[in-house]
């Protein structure tokens, strides 16, 4: 890897290589019916930090996965130094000098820091054995460069989340790549660690490395940017030099879209409190030494739509899953229609009228081996049991009613669940949930990964149910949805409620600031 870099340097000195290191031409990517990228042209320049902005699902991460060989494009080409390349896998990419820091941590917790940094590109000594001393020394040097006071022999399982992210960064640095992609590298870092990372990025830039940087912290990203690129709905919508733009420019281009202007009819007169939460504390399952939700109070009334808005890791998913009964609640009370449910199982909570539409539809929402009808009936089988028998006809009638009610586009209730588009699959989950006649409806990112038209339909259904008297609590990370489809927006950050907003009197910017998306990190640096 070192050799490649030196070669590139000399070629630049000789003027044989242009400033553009890597180029993507007309990249499209389809996942089933979803078009994640719609013909993107994108360039990365030597010695520059290119920052990508865009909401969740805008296509940034997908493009980066394609450029680093993790996924292959449906169509379009990649060029490196003007030559077309095809990346079959990450090994290919790293041999070409392209390295990526993944959004989600990809470490082997059972191995040491040094093992994790050098796995896949082992330093070997005599007889092909691992030269642990050299590896440890090199790993130590990188850690020192990142000002992290850790022994390279520490097990990754013993590190806290932020330190694990440092290991990811260290691994990318040790690869001496000339194209370095950083997808949300700072999500778990403290303020000081971010400062150090930025210093390192500037050094890499000076050494001629091309860097792509993605972050939800807009101001932080602008601080390090040389060039700014904005994605929306799978397309590159704007591109400019950092000097020519400001935060407002970025936000306007990130959000402004027609579909967001949909307004939903919401009820104004609420009923009694249907769901009441007091001092909820939930342990983070990924890192049991911290709390994912820390002392949260919230009431949702019948007929009210409440939106939980926040960044990834704010604790929204943990809260909703704990309410549904999937995660244990350490402390606090949850009452549904005045009855405490903390000790109840998932099934009992459904019977009591509280049920969840989970975030990951494919993994947690649907059973792929069951038909559309089978999936819809799943939560209410008890209602159709007589003696030992399942009353099939009655069940089929109920399922067909459900399909009509939420307008699932399917051939029949017997169709395979895979034959449906993402939006229709989500409607199947909704139909199942509604068949249990709930009083409290919990939804986690109900429109993730579905197209704009279907998003509006899902929200129309949700607001209809609210008007019928359900208490609806949904989580989203899309500002447009938060502002248009809720009576009240509750902003979560770091496991706590940091603000409550009336969407009619609130701007996008206000929400983004409250969630920490655009705020400076402030206290975060406290050690």
């Amino acid at each position: 890897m070192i050799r490649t870099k030196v070669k590139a340097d000399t070629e630049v000195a000789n003027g044989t290589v242009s400033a553009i290191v890597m180029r993507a031409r007309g990249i499209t990517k389809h996942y089933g019916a979803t078009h994640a990228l719609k013909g993107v042209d994108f360039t990365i320049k030597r010695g520059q930090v290119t920052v990508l902005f865009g909401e969740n699902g805008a296509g940034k991460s997908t493009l980066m996965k394609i450029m680093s060989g993790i996924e292959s494009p449906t169509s379009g080409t990649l060029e490196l130094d003007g030559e077309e390349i095809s990346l079959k896998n990450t090994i290919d990419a790293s041999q070409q000098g392209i390295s990526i820091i993944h959004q989600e941590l990809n470490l082997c917790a059972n191995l040491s820091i040094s093992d994790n940094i050098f796995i896949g590109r082992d330093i070997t000594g005599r007889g092909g054995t691992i030269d642990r001393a050299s590896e440890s020394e090199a790993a130590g040097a990188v850690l020192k460069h990142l000002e992290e006071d850790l022994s390279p022999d520490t097990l990754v399982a013993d590190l806290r989340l932020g330190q694990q992210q440092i290991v990811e960064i260290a691994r990318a640095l040790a690869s001496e790549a000339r194209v370095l992609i950083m997808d949300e590298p700072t999500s778990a870092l403290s303020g000081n660690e971010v400062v150090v990372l930025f210093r390192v990025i500037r050094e890499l830039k000076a050494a001629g490395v091309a860097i792509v940087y993605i972050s939800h912290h807009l101001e932080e990203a602008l601080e390090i940017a040389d060039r700014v690129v904005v994605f929306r709905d799978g397309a590159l919508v704007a591109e400019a030099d950092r000097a020519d733009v400001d935060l407002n420019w970025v936000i306007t281009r990130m959000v402004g879209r027609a579909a967001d202007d949909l307004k939903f009819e919401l009820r104004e007169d609420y009923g009694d409190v249907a769901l009441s939460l007091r001092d909820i504390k939930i342990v983070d399952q990924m890192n049991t030494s911290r709390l994912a939700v820390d002392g949260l109070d919230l009431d949702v009334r019948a007929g009210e739509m409440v939106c939980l808005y926040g960044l990834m890791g704010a604790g929204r998913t943990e809260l909703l899953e704990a309410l549904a009964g999937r995660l244990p609640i350490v402390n606090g009370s949850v009452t549904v229609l005045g009855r405490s449910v903390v000790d109840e199982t998932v099934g009992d909570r459904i019977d009591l009228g509280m049920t969840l539409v989970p975030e990951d539809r494919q993994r947690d929402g649907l059973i792929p081996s069951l038909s559309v009808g089978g999936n819809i009936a799943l939560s209410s089988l008890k209602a159709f049991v007589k003696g030992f028998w399942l009353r099939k006809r009655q069940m089929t009638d109920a399922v067909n009613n459900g399909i009509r009610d939420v307008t699932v586009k399917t051939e029949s209730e017997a169709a395979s669940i895979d034959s449906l588009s993402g939006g229709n699959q989500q409607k199947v989950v909704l139909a199942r949930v509604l068949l249990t006649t709930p009083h409290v409806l919990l939804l986690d990112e109900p429109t993730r990964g579905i197209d704009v038209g279907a998003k509006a339909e899902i929200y129309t259904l949700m607001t209809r149910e609210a008007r019928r008297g359900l208490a609806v609590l949904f989580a989203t990370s899309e500002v447009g949805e938060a502002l248009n489809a809720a009576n009240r927006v509750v902003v979560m950050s770091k496991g706590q409620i940091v603000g409550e907003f009336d969407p009619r009197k609130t701007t996008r910017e206000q929400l983004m600031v409250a969630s920490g998306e655009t705020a400076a990190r402030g206290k975060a640096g406290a050690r």
Partner: protein
Amino acid sequence: MSATQAEPKKKGLITVRGRSIDVGGILLEGRAFIALIVLIIMFSMLSDTFLSYSNVLTMSKHVAINAFLAIGMLFVIIKGGIDLSVGSTLGLTGIVAGVFLQGWEIDSLNVILYPQVWVVILLALAVGTLVGWINGYLITRFEVAPFIATLGMMYVARGAALLISNGKTMPRLQGSPELGNEGFDILGVSRPLGVPMQIWIMLVLAIIAAFILTKTPFGRSVYAVGGNERAAELAGVPVKKVKIRAYMISGFCAGIAGLVTASQLTSAIPGSGETFELNAIAACVIGGASLMGGRGTIRGVLLGAFVIGFLNDGLVNVGVSSFWQTAIKGVVIIVAVIIDQAQQRIKSTKNAAIAAASGSSASQTTEISDQTAVKGG
């Protein structure tokens, strides 16, 4: 569970608990060793002959056979798989050795081949390795679950052994000087320096295996694949190749076990090695390997093999009925796993305590949750 875990952290009882945990931790770490000592003391008190030279010799031979299988099995278990075919592979490789030692008739050429012993050994090991390769290929190429693929190969290999031998035992494998193929009994009968050959082979195999696991890039890849397959793949580890090689090593080790077993009896029995795969898995688990992958050591596996072997033979020695033996072995395995789970839990609690304490000064312990929450945000 989480509730009880979270409590002590928040109260900052770290140091107190840390100390009490450490004692338990040491006991837990060395549990296989302690179990072995306890077994030896217990059986030697119950039986005069348990520690006699001849009994120790017999037991160590049994231990060695199980250790061969368990050492190979460990590679597969660390990478996050399982190999149910090793017992059958043991039987098959023994039969393959038997066929060649008794003379391989090629009808069309009207000759009978009597290969030299070292050729026979290589051929048998090659067959064992081939079975492993098929396992690995099925698992990586066709994405058959390891349990199913190796279950299938367990039957295929046993069937092959029965077909080749026609279901009969192949006796008299000592060879003859006229044919130049004698010496097969060295593997299982000879006793260099008074120690059975099996034990020497076991030690050499264990040293080589430990070297591969701890010193080579391949060994590290095995741990990485078992720890986090996706991370390993993204880091550029050739995951499929690593998996196939792990199964090949397991098959190779089963081949050694097959040869030694056949040599020990100077006859090859098509049914030998039945249910041995379960003993091998038990040895790995007792030795601290995790069936979830990513964890396990050769040292632990050897201890595990000794525990299983001594337990088996000790119970026979003191005259416990074979029905009870089976039940007791089952209980030991379950207890080993329960202890292992407890150890993992204590470790993660301890980690949490360390993470909490890393706030450097004592006054910060109360702010732990805040601090980490900020970083996690």
